[in-house]
C-alpha cells in the first residue's frame, strides 16, 4: 500500500509486477512490485535509465499487455480485471503518447483519420460528430485542421507529428495521459514547444499525467512529483522541488549530476556512477543498485530496502540515504 493512504489518487498502482519469458525458462523481471499514485491534475515524472522498466510500467498501466500481477486502479476501477470490449470503451479515459511520433502514426492513413480513431474504436462515432471533435483536437494542439486534416504523416515534421499524437490522445477527453519519452526524439527548440503545450493542456483540462523521461531537466520542468526507477523497482518518490534540492537516494543524486548544463564554466555532465544496468533476468540480491552504488555495504546485498518516508511525501528505498 502507498504510504500516504489518506490521499485520494486518480491512478493507484499496487504491487505491480511485470515479467516476460526469456530463453531457457528464465524470466525478465521488468517491474518488480511497484506501488505508486497519481492525484487528479497531477504530473508525476518517472525517470531512470533505458532498461529500468519505465516503459514496461507504462504499458502495464495501459493494459498493453496487462501486468503479471498487481492492481491498476483508475478512479477506483481495477483495469486489470477488465477485458475485451469493455476495456476498449474505457480506454477513452486513459491514453498514451509515445516516443517516436512518426512511427506511432499509420503512414498510409490521413492524420485526420488517425486522430479520429480513438473515438471510433470506443464506439462513440454514432453518438458524436467525430470530425468536429477531431477539428477541435487539431486546434487544441496548434495545428490548422483545414490545412492539415487530409495529409499523410510523412508530410509533417517530428514536432508536428508529436502534436498530432497528442491530439489523438486527447480527443476522447482522457483523465490520465501516459507520456513515454514524448520529447526525447525532438530538437531542443521543438521540445520546448511540446513541453509548453503539454503543460497548457494539462492545466486547461485538469489532466493527470505520467511523464516518462530520462532527461531530468525536462522532468523537473513539467512534474509536480518525481519517481526514480532502477531495474524494476522504485528508488525514490518525492515532490519535485524537494527531490532536486536534496535527493536522498545515491542513484538519484548520480542522475542529477550527469545532466549537462549549458554553461562552459560549470558544464555538469559528471558521471559519478560507472558500469551498466545489471541484467533484469538475474537482478542483484538485496538492493538492486548496490553493484554500482558508491555507498553500498554488506547489508545492501542481504536486505532489500523498502520505500520509507523520510519527509512529508518524500519516500526513499535505501539503507544509507544521503
Amino acid at each position, binding site marked *: 500500500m502507498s504510504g500516504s493512504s489518506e490521499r485520494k489518487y486518480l491512478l493507484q498502482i499496487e504491487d505491480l509486477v511485470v515479467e516476460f519469458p526469456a530463453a531457457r525458462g528464465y524470466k525478465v523481471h521488468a517491474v518488480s512490485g511497484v506501488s505508486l499514485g497519481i492525484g487528479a491534475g497531477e504530473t508525476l515524472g518517472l525517470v531512470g535509465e533505458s532498461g529500468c522498466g519505465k516503459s514496461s510500467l507504462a504499458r502495464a498501466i495501459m493494459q498493453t499487455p496487462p501486468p503479471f500481477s498487481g492492481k491498476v486502479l483508475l478512479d477506483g476501477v481495477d483495469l486489470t480485471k477488465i477485458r475485451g470490449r469493455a476495456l476498449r470503451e474505457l480506454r477513452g479515459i486513459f491514453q498514451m503518447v509515445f516516443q517516436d511520433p512518426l512511427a506511432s502514426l499509420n503512414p498510409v492513413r490521413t492524420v485526420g483519420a488517425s486522430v479520429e480513431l480513438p473515438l471510433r474504436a470506443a464506439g462513440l462515432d454514432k453518438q458524436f460528430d467525430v470530425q468536429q471533435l477531431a477539428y477541435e483536437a487539431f486546434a487544441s494542439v496548434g495545428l490548422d485542421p483545414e490545412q492539415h486534416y487530409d495529409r499523410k504523416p510523412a508530410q509533417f515534421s517530428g514536432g508536428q507529428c508529436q502534436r498530432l499524437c497528442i491530439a489523438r490522445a486527447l480527443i476522447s477527453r482522457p483523465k490520465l495521459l501516459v507520456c513515454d519519452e514524448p520529447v526525447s526524439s525532438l530538437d531542443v527548440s521543438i521540445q*520546448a514547444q511540446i513541453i509548453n503545450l503539454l503543460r497548457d493542456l494539462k492545466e486547461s483540462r485538469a489532466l493527470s499525467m505520467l511523464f516518462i523521461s530520462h532527461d531530468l531537466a525536462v522532468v523537473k520542468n513539467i512534474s509536480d512529483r518525481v519517481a526514480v526507477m532502477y531495474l524494476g523497482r522504485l528508488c525514490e518518490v518525492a515532490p519535485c522541488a524537494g527531490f532536486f534540492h536534496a535527493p536522498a537516494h545515491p542513484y538519484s543524486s*548520480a542522475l542529477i549530476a550527469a545532466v549537462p548544463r549549458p554553461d562552459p564554466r560549470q558544464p555538469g555532465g559528471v558521471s559519478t556512477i560507472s*558500469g551498466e544496468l545489471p541484467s533484469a533476468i538475474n537482478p542483484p540480491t538485496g538492493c538492486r543498485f548496490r553493484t554500482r552504488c558508491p555507498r553500498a555495504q554488506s547489508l545492501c546485498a542481504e536486505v532489500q530496502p523498502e520505500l520509507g518516508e523520510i519527509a512529508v511525501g518524500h519516500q526513499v528505498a535505501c539503507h544509507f540515504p544521503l
Partner: protein
Amino acid sequence: MNGVDKQLLDIRDLTVELRDRRGPILPVDSVSFSLERGKTLAIVGESGSGKSMLCRAILGLVPSHGSILFNGHDTGKLSASEMNRIRGREIGVVLQNPLSSLNPVMTIASQIMEPMRCHLGLGARESREKALALMGAVGIPHPQERLSCYPHQLSGGMRQRVAIAIALACDPQLLIADEPTTALDVTVQSEILGLLSRLQQERNMSLILVSHDLGVVAGVADEIAVMYAGRIVELGPAGAIFERMRMRYTQALFDAIPRIDDPPHRRLPNIPDQPPDFAALPPGCRFAPRCASAGEICRNKYPPLVADGDERHSYACWFPCELKEAGR
C-alpha cells in the same frame, strides 16, 4: 615532419547543391570555418539546418563547391581512390544511432579490425591485438570476452563505444561525431562525451561534434558554429559565445533548453514554428520569420557575418542581442 600547419581543416565558401523535385536547394550555403589540430568544434543547430550535410561534404560524400583544405590538401582535387584513403584513415566518423551504423552480422572484433586491415594493411593477429587495446581505451569492460559479440548483444552505450573504437582504429587526425549521444541516456551521454574529449586530448586529434543541444556541447567545445538553414549564423570560441551571444537564434536556442537549476514549471521560451523549407527560403535573414526582434531590414536583406570586437567571434544579425541580455 617540419612546417606542420596549425590548421588541420580549413573550409572556404563551401556550398552543397542538391536537386529537389522543386529545383535546386542549398542545404549548405557558403560556409567557412577552420579547425586547429587538437581542438573541438561544435556545430549546433536544429534538424534540417544542414549540419549533417556539412559533415558529409567534408567527407566528400556529397558533391560540393568551395574549398576544403584538409591537412594542406585540397580534397576537391583528390581522386576518388585518394579520398577513400582519407576517409576512415585520417577522418573517422561516429554517427547518431550505433545500431544502424554497425553491421548486424559481423562480430565487433571484425568490425574494429576492418579499417586497420584495409587502410593500414595490418595482418589478422596484429589488428586483433590493436582492436583489444582500442576496446580497452574506449572503456569496454572485459574486451577479450566481447570480441566475438554481435552488436545486438550490447547495450546502446557499449555499441556507441564500439563505433568510436572503429572510428579511431587508424588513429585519425579528425573525428566527426554526428549527434553521438542523442540516442543515449543522460548517464551514458556524460560518459561518452567524457570519453571523446579524453581520447581527443590523448591523441591530439581534432573533433567536430554535431549536436542540436547547446547544453551538451558547453563542456567540451573549444569553438562553436551555430547553423541555421544552411548557413553559419554565429561562430566563435565557446567561452565568448556563451558569455555574449549576439545572434538572436543562438540566444533562442539557448533559452529553449530546460535547465536543471531552474525552478519547476518555468515556461520555456520556445522558438515558434520550425526551420524554413530549403526550397522556399525567406529573402532576408532566414531566421526572421521566427524571430521576435525581426524588423523590416531582416525580412529583406541577409545580414553579413560581422566580427564582434574579438576577431574570432562573428555573427550574422541586424539587431544583435545587447550584451546585458545575453548570457543571463
